[in-house]
């Protein structure tokens, strides 16, 4: 969350400075681009993963935010699905898949088993695949295989 606040503060500062110079329209700060789907993001996707409190035994924290493209408004109640190769199973195993909903601040968090390197990289998969916004499939890579958490930001484009 710290990173998000810092980013927002930086954005406001930049926008404020730009507005004061009069060179850039204030609307500049309102344009938040949607997150593009990543290559391979949908690999081993199983549509309709159940909403669970935790995937398997947990121990690894997947966190993220979901915002609306354009104005950047946090989106509550959005269903985010995730899966990975973990200490408890392969990507395509149904038990490796789970979903959660964002809270009132558009934040989601999921306790899941430790992600381990598979197919050459320690990575996870996340998907937004509901009706209100364009689908987005992500395949973030962990900076280190020993990381015990991963943070992912979604910016969704309304349909």
């Amino acid at each position, binding site marked *: 969350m710290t990173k998000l606040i810092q980013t927002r503060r930086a954005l406001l500062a930049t926008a404020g400075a730009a507005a004061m110079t009069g060179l850039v329209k204030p609307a500049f700060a309102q344009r938040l681009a949607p997150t593009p789907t990543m*290559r391979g993001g949908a690999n*081993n996707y199983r549509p309709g993963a159940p909403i669970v409190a935790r995937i398997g035994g947990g121990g690894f924290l997947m966190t993220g935010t979901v915002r609306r493209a354009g104005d950047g408004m946090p989106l509550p109640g959005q269903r985010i699905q995730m899966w990975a190769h*973990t200490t408890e199973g*392969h990507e*395509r195993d149904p038990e490796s898949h789970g979903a959660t909903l964002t809270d009132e601040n558009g934040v989601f968090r999921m306790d899941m088993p430790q992600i381990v*390197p598979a*197919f050459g*990289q320690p990575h996870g998969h996340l998907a937004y695949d509901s009706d209100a916004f364009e689908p987005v499939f992500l395949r973030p890579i962990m900076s280190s295989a020993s990381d015990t958490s991963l943070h992912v930001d979604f910016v969704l484009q309304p349909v």
Partner: protein
Amino acid sequence: MTVTSGTPFKSAVIWLALGVALSAPLIAAAQSPLLAWRDPIYIAAGFAGIMAMGALLLQPLLATGKLPGVSLWQGRHVHRWVGAGLIVMVVAHVIGLWITSPPDVIDALLFRSPTPFSVWGVIAMWAIFGSGVLALMRRRLRLRVWRFAHRALATVVVTGTVLHVIQIEGTMEDITKIALCALLCGATLWVWTAPRA
């Protein structure tokens, strides 16, 4: 048809070094913690790849008759069998990975994978297949054409393999991986630069 001469001690050292170069990466990979979280078919696919790397190191040594006690004729005979084995190992590698995660392998084969090492693995695979086809046509080619084309393809195989392997965070242990890659590059350079036997 010359058998490389040398002292028995020198021969023993060469064979020992070769044995270490081929077995150390396999032994080190067998200790990888990642194995605990992989199905047998995925593990087998990985080891098929490591064994193929070892076979790649053998190839130039066999083809040039430089191994102590192995004649050029014997070496080339074994070289053909190892070459056929390489194709089998690469096919096993790809099929094992395909069974483990079909979409990732399809992406790699179609050159649209998010992982930068996949493309090099697929290039090396096609170069190995091409080398096999070329070997079957060898008698219809002029010696110089055959020799250059086969070496060029082998160089693509080694380059592709090294760029493939070096970027992968997998079961191979780093030091043995880098050492085997260095040996492969060295052997390939040596084939191009060494004076003809």
